[in-house]
């Protein structure tokens, strides 16, 4: 099984452990598609794990499957050593509170009919936490912490706020539940560069203050490098490489797909980019019918006949780097 393998899992002490996660969808034509095929990872307390990949690689499906919204087709999700799959409906609802998720679209994430004060207190009111007064106080505190003036936004509705402000409200709503794990699903990609930088700094500070574990889903390696401790690279539902962020700074060999991603990130500099001789367009293979063996082989410069038959497993390359590739490892 390519891109699977659990060599990179650490023993014990993890806040979140995901093993052999499989997420399957049924298409309109009644076909089954595996968006995620056997992905494993863990997140330590206070650690940020980023999942990177192109659209359609299954990274957002992983986020939802961790939350059990909906539950994964197969595999185990353990939060604080508690297996979510074994819980009944009610216990699952309760344990979800310890994980909170923030989505990409800041506007669609907020009910247009509610005011900011109600949005932020939503979780507390669902669980009947505290008194009305203490909830108000908590909400104000959190709003303040995410850089919003509570007095200004308290009675506003989402359409009266900018995208960045909406995203802050979403983060405040998640933080007010005091989660152990914060899942950020592409939360920066709809924001402008200057706002994005503000949010990155905010997330880094918040994480440090609250000892949060974070699962950060993104497609931009430069952003990911700025926020994460560990990076997991996904391609077509499988894991290509898992590495500590420090390994990016080292002149290290990477999985060919990671390499492609690294080369594709636009860099700012005064030198002229020499365009590669107009390459032919190639399509990502359909997830309905993924390539045999290593899924990346159709785009891989290093592909050999072996890659079509045998799926590579994640193997330890160094202490902080695990690669699933026959040629590189």
């Amino acid at each position, binding site marked *: 099984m390519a891109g699977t393998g659990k060599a990179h899992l650490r023993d014990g002490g993890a806040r979140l452990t995901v093993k052999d996660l499989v997420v399957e969808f049924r298409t309109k034509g009644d076909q089954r598609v595996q968006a995620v095929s056997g992905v494993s990872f863990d997140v330590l307390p206070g650690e940020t794990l980023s999942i990177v990949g*192109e659209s359609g690689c299954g990274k957002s499906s992983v986020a939802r499957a961790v939350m059990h919204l909906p539950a994964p087709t197969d595999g185990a999700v353990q939060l604080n050593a508690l297996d979510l799959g074994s819980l009944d409906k009610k216990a699952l609802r309760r344990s979800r509170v310890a994980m909170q998720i923030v989505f990409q679209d800041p506007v669609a994430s907020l009910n247009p009919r509610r005011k900011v004060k109600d949005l932020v207190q939503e979780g507390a009111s669902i669980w009947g936490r505290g008194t009305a007064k203490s909830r108000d106080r908590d909400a104000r505190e959190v709003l303040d912490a995410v850089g919003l003036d509570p007095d200004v936004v308290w009675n506003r509705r989402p359409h009266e706020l900018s995208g960045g402000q909406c995203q802050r409200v979403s983060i405040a709503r998640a933080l007010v539940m005091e989660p152990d794990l914060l899942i950020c699903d592409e939360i920066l990609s709809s924001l402008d560069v*200057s706002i994005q930088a503000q949010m990155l*700094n905010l997330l880094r500070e918040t994480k440090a203050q609250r000892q949060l574990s974070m699962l950060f889903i993104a497609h931009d390696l430069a952003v990911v490098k700025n926020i994460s401790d560990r990076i997991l690279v996904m391609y077509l539902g499988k894991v290509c490489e898992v590495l500590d962020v420090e390994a990016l700074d080292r002149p290290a060999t990477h999985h060919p797909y990671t390499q492609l991603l690294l080369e594709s990130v636009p860099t700012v500099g005064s030198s002229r980019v020499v365009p590669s001789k107009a390459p032919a367009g190639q399509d990502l293979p359909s997830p309905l019918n993924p390539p045999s063996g290593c899924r990346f082989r159709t785009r891989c410069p290093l592909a050999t006949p072996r890659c079509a038959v045998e799926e590579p497993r994640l193997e330890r390359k160094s202490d902080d780097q695990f690669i699933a590739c026959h040629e590189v490892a």
Partner: protein
Amino acid sequence: MIKPLLHVRDLRTVFQTARGAVPAVAGVSFDLQAGETLGIVGESGSGKSVLGRTIMGLVAPSRTTAVHGTVEYDGTDLLQASPKRRRALLGAEIAMVFQDPLSSLNPVKRIGIHLTETLRQHRELSRSEARKRAVELLDMVRIPEAARRFDQYPHELSGGMRQRVMIAMALSCDPKLLIADEPTTALDVTVQRQVLDLLAVLCQERKMATILISHDLGIVSGRSDRVAVMYAGRIVESAAAEDFFRHQHHPYPRGLLASTPQLDSPARTVLTTVPGRPPDLARWRGGCHFSPRCPNVQERCRQFEPPVEQTTDGRTLACFHPVAPKGGEVNGRNR
């Protein structure tokens, strides 16, 4: 001095909205020489897309829209030209590539029709000649199995393929000027790279002048001869690309660059940010639009709008208190 291919002077586009007049483009001037690439960078609402569309004449003056200024293409003032004259230029001499290739292609028309109708509009070609040329164009943008693609519908292609079709469409009549409005924003990074490279190669081969509009400095970096940064409808700073990336005088482009996370800076760097957010143009009371967010703001900035001035080293700049280059340290980032 050579006459520029495109000569834009004091261009203004104002939209009347329920909340008041919004000057989306507020006095933009620049020249573009034949074969030159101009990168225009700005955040959302900066007016960069409206600028592109106004130059193309796609923002039609109406009850709610006013367009003033000069857009002179090769001696013709596009804003004054008759609709017929303008239509003869659009698609033939001036072409445009849009942001989202899926919505820019008519979902109910086959790929081939998109290409042939452009060709037949501007060139007197028979149906079969047009088809032959269209397949060649698809080949040119390196779309595999061009002949088969000809009869497919846009939704049957991937995003990258669609954008290649858009490029083929834009280049079908050998234009002299190409306006690419965020051509890769809707694409994945790996595909983005391919499409940008393709564009660059084709532009070089054909000596085509290009305006590359993007929100991302990284995209125009290394791919343009000049860079212009827009903020609140104005070009606040423009310079030759090399000079621009070496040093920015205006605090906004400086801040923008500092807040872009870079792959070559160390992990978990604290980013220098531009505090606040862009101004509401409909409610603007005067003064420099960047003054509420500016680290160097002075009293004068709050009262007067700085004029756009030419500096000695060939830049244009709209700032009362530009940041002087310091020796050694380039732009405040670790390299």
